[in-house]
C-alpha cells in the first residue's frame, strides 16, 4: 500500500543540505532535487477522483415487457483521471541558501515549501561558514583557479610552514579589526564584552567579506590546505585570498579546490550525496534538520535567537575560540 501523496508532501516542508559535487551548477542541483521529488510524489497514491451522480438507464423486466428506468448511481468523474488532468504535482518550491559556484563543492542548503521562510531567517541570522581551501604554489592565473590562463610562474623553495602561518596570522588580525567595526557595537559596553568573551561577536548586518578564523591544515609544497571560517564571503573571494597569500609569500599561488564543510548549522555529515537525492532520504534529512532549525525564530530574529543553532559542530565552535585567543 503506497503512502498518500499529499500527506507525504506535508512532511517535506523544511530545510535540508545536499553535498554539491564540483563542476555542477547549483541550479542544476536544485532542479535535479525537484524533478526527483516530483517523480516520486506522483508515483504515490493520489486523491481519489470526485464522484458524480448520474441517472443511468437500466432495463428491468416488468409486467408488460421491458421497462426502462433511470437509476441514480455515483460514477467517478473521468476528468479527474491522471491521464486527463495530468500529474498532481507539477512543481515544488525549492529555494536555495548561500550558493556555491560551479567549481566549488560542499554543503549546499535547500528549502522546500515553508522552509523557504526559514531560509530567509537563516540569511538574516548571518551564520558563519567553514571552508576547506586547497592552493598550489608556483603559478598564478587570471581567474585564480588552476584551469585559468597562466599569468606567471614562480619558484617556491623558500617558503616554509612558519612563513605561511605568519601571513595567515596577519590576515586574521586585520579581519579582527574589520569585524569589530562592522559589528556596530560600543566596545566599552558590557554587552560587547560578553559577546567577545564567548567568541560570538560578529556583524548582524550586511558587510564586506570577513575572515573570522584561518589556519593551515597541511603544508607540503607546492600544495597547501587551509581551513577558513568566514562570513559574507563568495567563493571567488576565497580564491583571490589564496592568490594574495601567494603574492605575500614572494611567490604566487592558485586555488585548486574550494569546499564548504559547514554552512551555519549544516555540516558535511548531515548533507546528502548525489545518490541520496530521493524522497526517503530527503524526508529523513528534513526531519533531522528540523530539530536544529527550531532555534531559528520567525521574522527578524534578535541576536540571542540567532545564536541558538550555531554551535552544531563542536570542531567549528572550538576552533573559533581557539583562533581568536
Amino acid at each position, binding site marked *: 500500500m503506497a503512502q498518500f501523496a499529499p500527506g507525504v508532501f506535508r512532511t517535506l516542508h523544511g530545510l535540508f543540505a545536499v553535498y554539491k559535487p564540483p563542476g555542477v551548477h547549483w541550479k542544476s542541483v536544485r532542479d535535479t532535487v525537484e524533478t526527483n521529488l516530483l517523480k516520486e510524489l506522483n508515483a504515490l497514491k493520489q486523491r481519489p477522483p470526485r464522484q458524480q451522480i448520474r441517472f443511468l438507464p437500466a432495463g428491468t423486466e416488468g409486467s408488460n415487457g421491458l*421497462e*426502462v*428506468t433511470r437509476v441514480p448511481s455515483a460514477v467517478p468523474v473521468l476528468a479527474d*483521471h491522471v491521464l*486527463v488532468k*495530468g500529474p498532481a504535482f507539477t512543481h515544488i518550491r525549492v529555494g536555495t541558501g548561500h550558493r556555491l559556484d560551479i567549481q566549488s563543492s560542499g554543503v549546499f542548503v535547500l528549502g522546500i515549501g515553508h522552509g523557504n521562510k526559514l531560509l530567509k531567517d537563516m540569511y538574516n541570522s548571518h551564520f558563519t561558514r567553514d571552508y576547506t581551501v586547497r592552493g598550489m604554489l608556483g603559478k598564478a592565473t587570471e581567474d585564480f583557479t588552476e584551469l585559468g590562463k597562466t599569468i606567471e610562474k614562480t619558484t617556491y623553495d623558500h617558503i616554509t610552514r612558519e612563513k605561511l602561518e605568519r601571513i595567515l596570522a596577519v590576515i586574521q588580525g586585520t579581519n579582527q579589526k574589520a569585524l569589530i567595526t562592522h559589528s556596530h557595537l560600543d566596545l566599552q559596553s558590557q554587552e560587547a564584552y560578553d559577546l567577545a568573551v564567548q567568541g560570538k561577536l560578529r556583524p548582524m548586518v550586511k558587510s564586506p567579506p570577513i575572515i573570522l578564523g584561518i589556519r593551515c591544515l597541511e603544508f607540503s609544497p607546492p600544495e597547501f590546505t587551509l581551513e577558513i571560517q568566514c562570513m559574507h564571503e563568495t567563493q571567488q573571494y576565497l580564491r583571490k585570498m589564496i592568490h594574495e597569500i601567494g603574492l605575500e609569500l614572494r611567490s604566487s599561488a592558485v586555488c585548486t579546490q574550494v569546499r564548504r564543510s559547514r554552512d551555519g548549522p549544516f555540516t558535511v555529515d548531515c548533507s546528502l550525496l548525489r545518490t541520496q537525492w530521493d524522497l526517503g532520504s530527503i524526508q529523513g534529512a528534513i526531519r533531522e534538520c528540523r530539530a536544529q532549525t527550531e532555534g531559528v525564530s520567525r521574522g527578524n530574529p534578535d541576536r540571542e535567537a540567532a545564536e541558538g543553532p550555531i554551535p552544531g559542530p563542536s570542531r567549528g565552535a572550538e576552533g573559533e575560540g581557539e583562533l581568536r585567543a
Partner: protein
Amino acid sequence: MFLVVCRISRRCSLLNASNYAHFSRGLWHSAALTQRSQRKNEMVALRRLLGHIYGTERTTWSSVMLLRRHFTHLSTEGDATVMFSEQNLPSIKLYPQETKVLPGTDFNTLSEDLEGAPPLSPLEEITENEAAQIAADLPIPPASFTLQDYVDQSETLKKLVLLGVDLSKLEKRPNVANFLLRLDFERDVSRFLLFLKDVGLEDSQLGAFLSKNPFILSEDLENLQKRVSYLRLKEFSKEAVARMVAKAPYLLNFSIERLDNRLGFFQRELGLSTEKTRDLIIRLPRLLTGSLEPVRENLKVCEIELGFKKNEIQHIAIKVPKILTANKKKLMETFDYVHNIMGIPHHLIVKFPQVFNTKLLKMKERHLFLGFLGRAVYDPTKPNYVSLDKLTSTPNEIFCVEVAKASVQDYERFLKTL
C-alpha cells in the same frame, strides 16, 4: 418582405441556380442589417416560401438545396442551441461556423418542419418510459482551454483515456485537442488501432503510441500499409518493425521516399553493409525519425576532433548507436576526460565504447576514488587491471566491493571530500 421573397422565388425557377444563390445571399446581407424582429419575419417568410415551392413542384433539387443552406444559415444565428442539441457531437459546439457545411440531418429537420409537426410542448404529459429515455446530460461549455470539460461527455475521448492516451500532454500541443474532439472512435480510430495491432504493437503500447503521435489518425491507411510493406521489403522482420514503430512513433508518418533516403544516408555516411545498417536502425529506431544534421555533425566530430578512424567509428556506432544522437559538447567532454586525464588510448576506447554512454560525473568520481586507493590501472597488461566496462556500467555497490575492494561507506565518505 414576404411578398418580395415570393415574387423572387417564382422568377428564380426560371433562372439558373448560381444566379439564385447570388441573389439570396444579397438578400441575406440586407437582412442582416435589419433588426432581430425583422429577421424572424424573414424566417417565417422563408418557411412559407418553401411550402409554396413544394406545392408547385417545379423547382429543381439544386435550388431547394440552396434554399436549405440559406435556411440553416439563418437558423444558426437564431436557433443555434436547438440545432446543436440534436447532434451529439461536441466538436460542433466549438465551431458554430462549421454548421453551414454540415450534412444531411438538416434536411430531416426541414421536412419535419414542412409536415408541420409541432415540437413537444413543455406542458404536455409523457409516459414514464418516454421520460426515462430522455438523456439529460450536463451542458458542456462552447469553448474551453482543456479537454477535461469534454471527457465525461465524449465517447471517443473516454475510450482514448481507457486505452491509455495521455490527454493532458496532448492538449498542450497546438491543434491536437481540436483534432481529437472531431474524431469518432468507431469511424476514425478503431481501424488505426486494428492496423497497429496488425503491425505487431502490444495492447499496452497503443496508448503510449497515440500519446506521442496522434497525427497517425489523420494519415491514409493505405499509405501506412504501403510503408510497412516497404519496411518488410527491406528485410526487417515483423518483430523488428513492431519494435521500430513502438520506439519511433513518427516512423509511419514518413513517406516511402523519405524513409528510403534516410536508410540510404546511414548506410552511406557510416559505410556499413545492409545487414549492419538494419541492426543499427533496429537498435535505435529514432535515428530514422530524428534530424540528420546532428548525426552528420557527430560523425565529423568523431573523425576530426576525436581522431578516430573510419572503421573505429563504425564499430563504436554499432555498439553504442546513441553516440550518433548525443550532444556534441558532452561527447567531447567525455572523450577529453577519458583520453587526456585518465590516459586511455584510442584502441582501448574503441574496445569499450560504453564510456560514451555513462555520465561523466559518475566516471570522474569513480576514477578519482580508484586513484585515491592506487587502483586506477587501465592497462590490460598490468596486474590489478580495471576494465573500462567495469568502471562505467556496474552499480555503485558492486563497483565498491568488486573493483575498488572498499566499502560503500568509504566511497561515500570519499565523495564528500571532493
